């Protein structure tokens, strides 16, 4: 088991090396003559206009919020699923209750019209 985690750790350290090498090789062999016009932001093809920081819809945040709540729920459910053999029927139903409470939240957001993209 620890050996497997050593493998993961080394993989974490080495995995970025391959793409990093792919970025560094062009540094050595590719031409490099930057000028002001060339390094202008492309954006959508015409000259850029105004600040890059445009105001975004608050709705992106709401969707991330619903996601966060469900993400947490799932973290509780994974140990529950792994321990399934040790659980009596009512413990399973507790897990189901846990899911249903969260579904109530989903229904609330649904009824409130939060899930519509406006």
């Amino acid at each position: 088991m620890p050996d497997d985690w050593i493998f993961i750790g080394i993989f974490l350290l080495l995995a970025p090396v391959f793409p990093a090498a792919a970025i560094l090789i062009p540094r050595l062999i590719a031409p490099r003559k930057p000028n002001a016009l060339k390094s202008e932001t492309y954006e959508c093809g015409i000259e850029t206009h105004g600040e890059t920081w445009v105001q975004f819809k608050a709705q992106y945040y709401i969707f991330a919020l619903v996601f966060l709540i469900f993400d947490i729920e799932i973290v509780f459910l994974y140990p529950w699923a792994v321990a399934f053999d040790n659980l009596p029927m009512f413990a399973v139903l507790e897990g189901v209750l846990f899911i249903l409470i969260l579904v109530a939240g989903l229904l609330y957001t649904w009824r409130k019209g939060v899930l519509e993209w406006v």
Partner: protein
Amino acid sequence: MTVMQVIFLVTAVVSLGGAVMVVTVRNLIHASLWLILTLFGVAVMYGLLSATFFTVIQVVIYIGAIAILMIFAIMLTRRVKQEPGSSVNNNWWLAGLMALVLFTALVWMLSTWPGFQTTLPELPQDFDSIKVLGTALVSPEGYVIPFEIASFLLLAALIGAVAVAWERKS
């Protein structure tokens, strides 16, 4: 120095450095990226403590959800012009002093505790902590009340946050 100590020290230095950057750097997006580095360091710490389930959920929840939520919020609440003035309030030196005093006090208090130097005990044989955790979370002798309350808490947080942040377009 064992391998574990080396890993611990490197991780500790990186994540504490990241934490310092989180509380000092001006650009909030950069601060959140440093925060992610720190959170990742903490995930490695859980790995060193052989709580591998926590390693992955630290990444899934903190980096995959909470950090993303923060980045979204930063982008939603940014004024067009760079905020003027310093990023810290006038009492920042007092705050620093308090943090330092608290740290010294904590370390001093802990060092007087006899259990401070406890060395790593062997994990019991055939101990699957995820299985035990899953059983404990739903057994009536265990943590079934916190488990169900956590779900109510999340429901309340969802409803509350949606009610606060949601604004119907007229």
